[in-house]
Each structure stands twice: as C-alpha cells, then as structure tokens.
C-alpha cells in the first residue's frame, strides 16, 4: 500500500492535532471537568508524538519471536520511547486522578464546576 505521507508523519500530525484540541479545551472552556478532559487530550497527543519519534522505516515491534529473529533485531523500532510512554501514561493517570479529586473538593465547597466562581483564592 503506497501512502503519500510516511507513517510517523501521520502519527505526528494526529498527535499534535490532539495537543491543539486539548489546549483549546483548556483555554476556552470554563467548566472544570472539560478543562481536565482538555489536559488528558493534551497528554494523549504528546504520547502519540513520542511514540511516533521512535518509528524506524519498515520497523516492527521490538519483540524477539518467530517474526523477528535475534539476528535481524536491527529491524525493530526504537523501544526507548515506548518504554518512556508506558511510564508517562501511568503518571498521566495519576495527575488526572489528582485533578479530579480537587474538582470534587471544589464542587463540594461551592456546588459549582464553573471556574469563574473560584476567584478569591489567589494569594
């Protein structure tokens, strides 16, 4: 199958697109939960970008098995970005959990998710 763009470029554009959508969500919306969704979109886009930079033309998954013998291991993609992204996904989950916990806390204090209602706590 002939593609106009190389695979990594498609992934880069998708990832950066998701980052921009997330950034839009963070900056434009006033609802706390939508802002948190924006942050997770931002993070997911960056994960896709990091994985895309590890792609090697014609490479395959870095798993030594019948499809990829030990002798031809040079055909594998770069495993380091994948390993970093596994870490990043877990940390992203942790950050989202903390953000949601704060949102729940703020909601129980003010009974609203509108970020405009939280103005006095700048000190």
């Amino acid at each position, binding site marked *: 199958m002939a593609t106009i763009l*190389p*695979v*990594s*470029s498609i992934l*880069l*554009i998708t990832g*950066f697109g998701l*980052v*921009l959508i997330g*950034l*839009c969500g963070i*900056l*434009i919306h006033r609802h706390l939960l939508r802002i948190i969704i924006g942050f997770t979109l931002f993070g997911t886009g960056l994960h896709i970008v990091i994985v895309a*930079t*590890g*792609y*090697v*033309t014609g490479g395959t*998954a*870095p*798993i*030594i*098995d019948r499809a990829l013998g*030990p002798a031809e*291991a*040079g055909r*594998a993609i*770069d*495993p*380091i970005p*994948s*390993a970093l992204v*596994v*870490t990043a*996904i*877990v*940390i992203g*989950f*942790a950050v989202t*959990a*903390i953000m*949601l*916990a*704060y949102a*729940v*806390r703020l909601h129980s204090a003010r009974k609203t998710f509108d970020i405009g209602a939280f103005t006095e706590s700048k000190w």
Partner: protein
Amino acid sequence: MIHRVGALFAVTLFALIFIRLAGGYTERSALRPLAEHYVLQAPLELGVSNIVTGILIAYRGFDTLGEVAVLFMVAASVGLLLRKDEADLGEAKAPQRRPASEIVMTGSRVLLPVILTFGAYVIVNGHLSAGGGFQGGAIVASGVMLLLLADPAARLNAAALSMIESLAGMLYVGMGILGLILAGGFLDPRFLPLGEAGTLISAGAIPLVSALLGIKVGAELSVIINRFRS
C-alpha cells in the same frame, strides 16, 4: 470575547511551532546507538523477548520504582482529598438507588472473571510478548471499575487492598536489594537463572517483578477508583 481571542492566538502560535516540528521531521531509517544496544543485548543479557519490558524493569528499573512510588502517593493524596467529613456522613445519606437490572448484573458477573483472567495473562506474559505489569494491572482495575459501575453498593475491602499493595511494594524493593547482593546492582533481575529465552519461566526475576508490579498497580488503581465513589 477578548479571552477567547487570546486563547485562539495562543493556540495558533502553538500550531505554528507544531507545523514547523512536524514538517521538519524526517523518519529514522536506522536505530539510535543506545536503542541498537538495547535491542541487540537485551535478549542476550536478560533473556527477555519483549525489549520494552526489559528496559522498563531492568535497565530503567529505578525509574519504574519511582513511578510506583508516585502512584502510591497519588492513592494516599486522593484519599486525603476525598475523605468524608464526620459531619457529612450524618446528613448526606446515600440516596436510595434502584438495583441494577438483571442484564447488567449477569453481564458483569460473566465478564468480570474473563477480564481478571485476561489481566493476569497480560501480567505474566510481559517478558514474552506485548504486555507487562502496568498494562495488566490497568486491565484488572478496569474489571473492578466494571464491578463498581454495575453494582454501586458493592463493597471493596480497601484495607486488604492497601495491605496487598504495600506488601507487593516491599517485595519489589526486596527484589532490588537481592539484585544488589547476588547480581550486578540494585534491581538487577539476573540473580535467578536466565533460562531459555521465549519460555514462560525465563529472563531471571523479570516475571516475578512484573507480577509484583501488576498486583501493586491493580490494587492501587482499584483503591483510587474506589475512593471516587461517593
């Protein structure tokens, strides 16, 4: 209005940077030297087939330990943030919910063992094929999520989960110290025999560490999900 224009301006600037980055990127045609070393040496040095797992648990094991510590702190701080105040407990009695329908109950009962088995498979398969402790732990926690969604009245034994999680964490550090004493350094998994690459019992202590990670992550995420239930 001005707020919106400012936001769109910032997004446009980011878009310009990203277009330059994506446009100037050329796909690699060969591995970086470090990656090449990992890909060629990991099967020989560690006996792992899945090189990503080898990097996560052996070469960057210390990072993984730090990450598990971050997860632990998050579970603790979410508990602190969402703790029920004594006053709340009295007045905010849980509203009477309709019990879940037959379809939901039966469906969750059928699916839950399958999900948990699949999670266990992904955890123990980490050194052979795609999978590993974090991924399998997340699958196990998704099963717990399904259980809590299907039956909001279900009680998780949070104390037992915390105990399992702490025990797995301590054993993980213990493995690291064993590696320090018996093999090349902290978290070196080669203190057990490497065995034959590609079989279930191989790759030194990597399957054990992977299983501990899976148990710890699964228990931790379940505790976090449980905390969010009001």
